[in-house]
């Protein structure tokens, strides 16, 4: 049996569970909507403007940093797995990679990308 099949089954069950619960709650619940109830909550005041303004750039910056470093973290995984076979050669190769990573990290730090 393929080892991923159970995961697929679990995924299907999990999705089904979520949908089922929502549907059941929709059927059982007793909606009595009115305009006030369906308006967006904003501390009791009528909402001004929309929430969907442009996001501040800061959040994108965090995402960019994440993508950069996450991909690089992912490189560590296979390396760690076969570290024994690679031995000193692997260590030096990774050390170089780590150094490059560290330089980038320090640069980001100094540039202030990690300050909020």
């Amino acid at each position, binding site marked *: 049996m393929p080892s991923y099949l159970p995961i697929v089954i*679990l995924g299907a069950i999990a999705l089904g569970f979520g949908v089922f619960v929502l549907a059941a709650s929709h059927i059982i619940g007793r*909606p009595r909507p009115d305009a006030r109830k369906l308006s967006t909550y904003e501390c009791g005041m009528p909402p001004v403007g929309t929430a969907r303004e442009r996001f501040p750039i800061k959040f994108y910056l965090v995402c960019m940093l994440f993508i950069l470093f*996450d991909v690089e973290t992912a490189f560590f995984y296979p390396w760690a797995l076969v570290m024994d076979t690679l031995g000193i050669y692997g260590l030096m190769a990774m050390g170089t990679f780590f150094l490059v990573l560290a330089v980038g990290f320090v640069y980001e730090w100094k540039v202030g990308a990690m300050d909020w």
Partner: protein
Amino acid sequence: MTPLAEELLVTFVKIVIVVGALLGGFSVMTWVERRSLAFMQYRLGPNRTGPFGILQPIADGIKLFFKEEVMPVAANKWTFLAAPVVAVATALLATAVIPYGPPFEAFGRTLQIQIADIEVGLLFIFAVTALGVYGVVLAGWAANNKYSLLGGLRSSAQMFSYELALGFSWVTLILAARSFRINDIVDTQAGGFWHWNVVVHFPAFIVYFLAATAEVARIPFDLPEGESEIVAGFHTEYASMRFALIQMAEYINMITVTVLLANLFFGGWHSGVPGMPESLGGFPLGFVWWGLKVAFFLFVFIWLRGTLPRFRYDQLMQFGWKVLIPVAAVWVMTFAVLWVVVGGGPR
């Protein structure tokens, strides 16, 4: 019965057990959390429904089913509905590769409560927990509410930042175990408790524990739903079972990281005492050790909530980027050098 059908049946039973246990665990956790927080705070907590109030989660569940569903007209309907489903589905999916307790003999075969024992177990968890942020971001965006949006942005940034540290903290474990399989990592910790990874990889443990707390947004890292600042964060507009699903996802995530903590760093089902018998009257004692460890760390999360205030947003981000990630990365390299110098562990 063909072998495939038999396998399918076993898998199905396992899924039912795991999902049932997680949902049950979620219910019990809500009760335990409310009760223990109450006792820390000179209160009683829910104590009316059933003995010691233990049936309170069921009453809550029934109530939530009957609750009125409210969706703001300004919301994006399908995204709004999809968010809780995505959240709970990813939370459940991440639990697929985790072993719950030791392998044991039953029905003439070796069984283990683990849905899928795949080769890349840790990688899988890494991938799926990263997906988990979708539920939160979708919920935050769909509601078209400013507090939700801020909450969604906060949690995505927070989860991204701490995901890195979390990922780094596993590298040395993989290195030492030469495997991604959680079972293998648990087995490297057999014997005395000084073999546990919490001793061997102490910096990694610290990083993992803090990053995991942040990943599941518990105090002191509960900023995505910091109710005093952004009301309820990304789930401000959620009511009824939609809200319950989001809560469920959070608690399942919490259970996941706790089980991982016990498995990866605290010897899993190994007692830590050399010479301790494997089973007692046919019952594998590993379940007891494992259960105690998991229960203890679940309680630690509640304990933290009863003790600490929360960080401010910039402090949280700086802590993640400027403390945890460098510490984790430097530890990885240090450990690798030691590993090569000392010549590796027992093979």
